[in-house]
């Protein structure tokens, strides 16, 4: 295997797992919102959470999948495994190929560049020099998305099996807090997706690379 810096920008395992996320996240988000419709409140019965501002608000029907509670649960629990599997394949590939070095956010290496890039986006400073595949802010965003995906699966398991996996449910603060965190992660992943799509639209070359793999850097 070539060292990562001599590889194409997007090797095929990255492209495959990246594009698999699109239908999987869409199915899980939409079926999850249909499940939420059955009880659109956060907090246990008789003790609604004050921190949740959308008590009783229904997600619009065009954002939902599964028609009814049992149908949506079947979609959700059928495809949740594939999202988890996709994440495991991605992480294993990152670890074994060494790709993690140019993709994951390492605080000591990347913080300065992440701040400089953010300052550039806020029109406070000129663009920092781009070295390597990603800048620090991109690494931060993609690493955060990976962690959010992992937490989505784990908080989902915590509310799917609050007795058999009670240690996991307890880590999220109990059943109802875990359910709230599961929904919060959906919102955060949706915000990430919006930002991701906007930035890709501003840099169309990256879109092509995620399809073709891009060119190997000149040696």
């Amino acid at each position, binding site marked *: 295997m070539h060292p990562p810096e001599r590889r194409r920008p997007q090797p095929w395992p990255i492209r495959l797992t990246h594009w698999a996320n699109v239908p999987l996240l869409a199915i899980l988000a939409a079926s999850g919102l249909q*499940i*939420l419709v*059955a*009880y659109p*409140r956060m907090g*246990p*019965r*008789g*003790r609604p959470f004050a921190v949740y501002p959308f008590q009783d608000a229904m997600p619009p029907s065009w954002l939902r*999948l*599964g*028609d*009814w*509670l*049992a*149908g*949506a*649960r*079947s*979609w959700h*629990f*059928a495809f949740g*495994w594939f999202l988890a599997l996709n994440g495991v394949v991605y992480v294993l590939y990152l670890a074994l190929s060494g790709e993690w070095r140019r993709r994951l956010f390492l605080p000591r290496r990347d913080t300065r560049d992440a701040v400089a890039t953010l300052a550039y986006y806020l029109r406070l400073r000129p663009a920092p020099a781009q070295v390597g595949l990603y800048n620090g802010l991109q690494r931060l965003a993609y690493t955060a998305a990976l962690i959010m995906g992992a937490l989505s699966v784990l908080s989902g398991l915590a*509310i799917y*099996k*609050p*007795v*058999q*996996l*009670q240690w996991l449910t307890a880590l999220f603060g109990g*059943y*109802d807090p875990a*359910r709230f965190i599961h929904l919060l992660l959906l919102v955060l992943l949706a915000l990430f997706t919006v930002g991701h799509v906007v930035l890709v639209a501003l840099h169309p070359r990256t879109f092509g690379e995620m399809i073709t793999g891009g060119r190997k850097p000149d040696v």
Partner: protein
Amino acid sequence: MSERVLTRRRVLLGAAALATSACDSQRPRAGFLGAMDRFNERAQATLFHPTRLAPEEPVEQLTPPGDFPQYFISDTVPLAPAGWRLEVGGLVARPRAFSLEELRQLPRTDSRIRHHCVEGWSAVASWHGVRVSDLARAVGADPRAGFVEFRSFDQGYYSSWDAPSALHPQTVLAYGMNGAPLIPGHGAPLRLYSGVKLGYKMVKYLTTVRFLPEATGGTWEDRGYEWFAGV
């Protein structure tokens, strides 16, 4: 339009139809969703541990009175018929009918554990009654009975369980809630309560418990809800 386009369109439509029938929300127990449902059932049964207990909740977690939902499918609260008895039968050595007084003479179990509804809410009450496992011992249930079916006088609402979940130490035939006798709204005179299943598996207004060699279905399970429904 050329024939080739027509053919391609037909192939696409066929693929779409196949995908639709494999993932039919109205029939989640069939097709691909059904295959995954059976996979999840096995995964849940594997994850289930017969002695792992749902955590006891502290008193402060009790759901305020009136906020614990009542559930029945009849139009009005079902009331026990005069001379109510619990019929216990199937693969048992000594089939018999129990009056509530006779059930009260069996060992009593108390627990305060969280209720998980399929809709997503949770609530806490304390429950007391007799363990299904103690009842099984009293009637000499055959170990070959891998399933237990519970039926009610609430328009025939019923559900069948895997025996390991039914015989779990926190699965009880409850005749009391929060220290008081069970009221009609919560399933009087006798209801199933368990720490290891979703609420729709907990049959209220019980009439019959049968130890069976095979799974039957359930009121919601027959409409497409998952059968195992462990938590």
